[in-house]
């Protein structure tokens, strides 16, 4: 089963994202704090990481920058920024910090799910 790691500090949002991902049969593990999420990502190597930027313990963008390196740079699982920030500049910045994709809240669950499926398939094609 594909495994998605979700780092999101708002529980209601996290619950909703988990329900959307569960409709496709994904297993989701949720962390409220960035550093807890990063520790889990290093230990368990998820298929896709979903990362909020406004986190209680660390700036999400900075976390992506280091996490991406620790998980093997280009070989790292894809990281998708899921954030209330919006606009082309935010998206460019997110990608510069190492995010593979960017989705702005509020998002369409179908588009969100399609994006996650696409990146999970990419990870599987690469042989994790």
């Amino acid at each position, binding site marked *: 089963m594909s495994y998605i790691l979700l780092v999101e500090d708002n529980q209601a949002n996290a619950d*909703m994202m988990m329900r959307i991902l569960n409709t496709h049969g994904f297993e989701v593990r949720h962390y409220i704090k960035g550093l807890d999420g990063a520790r889990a990502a290093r230990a368990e190597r998820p298929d896709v990481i979903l990362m909020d930027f406004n986190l209680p313990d660390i700036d999400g963008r900075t976390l992506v920058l280091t996490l991406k390196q620790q998980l093997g740079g280009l070989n790292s699982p894809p990281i998708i920024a899921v954030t209330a920030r*919006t606009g082309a500049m935010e998206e460019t910045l997110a990608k510069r910090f190492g995010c593979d994709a960017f989705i702005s809240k509020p998002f369409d669950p179908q588009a969100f799910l399609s994006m996650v499926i696409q990146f999970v398939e990419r990870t599987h094609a690469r042989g994790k």
Partner: protein
Amino acid sequence: MAKIVIIDDDALMCNMIIETLAEKGHETFSALDGRAGIALIENKLPDLVISDIMMPELDGYQCLELIRSNSRIDTIPVILLSGINEFGAIRKGMVLGADDYLVKPFSHEDLSAAVETQLKKRALIRNHHETTLSLLRKNIVYSLPHEFRTPLQLIMGHGHLLDMTYNSATPVDIQESARVIVSAGKRLQRLIENCLVYTQLELADEKEKLALRNHVLRDSANVITEVARARAEKYQRLPDLTLELSKTALRISEDDLRKIVDELVDNALKFSEPGSQVVIKSSYHDSTYTLTIEDHGRGMTDEQIKNMGAYMQFDRALFEQQGLGLGFTIARRLVELHEGKLDISSTPNVGTLIKICFKA
């Protein structure tokens, strides 16, 4: 380079000052009497004014009074010049709001030093305002969309989710979605209402304020109890709430008292841990009604208290929390509208005490 207006009926003195300041690279404008001087200040909006005291038409003191009573120019620093080296004359200038006082004759160095001091002070104040404004802009750019988008995301997301899973969702899933939609909708409603109430309070003129004041509430204790208990229930913290209230009639509308108590109790609960007490007390002594709301939560530094205001939520980076700092500002404005006073004292990691006083 700064813009400086010089007002002196002595043309020679005027020229001497202009030369000294021009040498330092400043741009100067001069007038030979007070009336022309004020017109020049209003026109040029300079960084500094240097004015003689003894002049025909308007003297230096009168000029100073006009400057300090005109909101377009009232913050411009003023250096007074006078041939009178007398304590009373100097004090009079200072009391009227002069920033410095030079006794003629003075040297080029004295003049330059006095001018540079005032310009430096003005630059510091301007910098301070710029920093506050840029923080405010940043908060509006980041916090405002975040605050609106978070509940909107939940409403739209769950709506789509119901659509996506209409033939597979369980009754429990459907109920959960419905509850999230309603609760996020309430949050959005409260946010929109607060933005509107805040704007109304900011824009109300004296006549409107008077109309809003014209109320008497017979039993304040009942209203406070009801609102505080409802808030505490929402946070599932009813056992944490202690109420010791006196049944006093107040000159305030029920709606406004509700709003004040609701916002302040909400903050007390939001910024303190479940299990810690939130104590609300009211008393009546010497025709003054006092209401206090005390929590044992996160607390604030003096600096944070000073910066509290609309759209000035702080530590956003550290704490996922709801609100724009509007609730507290609205509560304070409502207290002031009803001619009351709101004081706040707080210690980081110890708690916060809000004290409201009304003449009953």
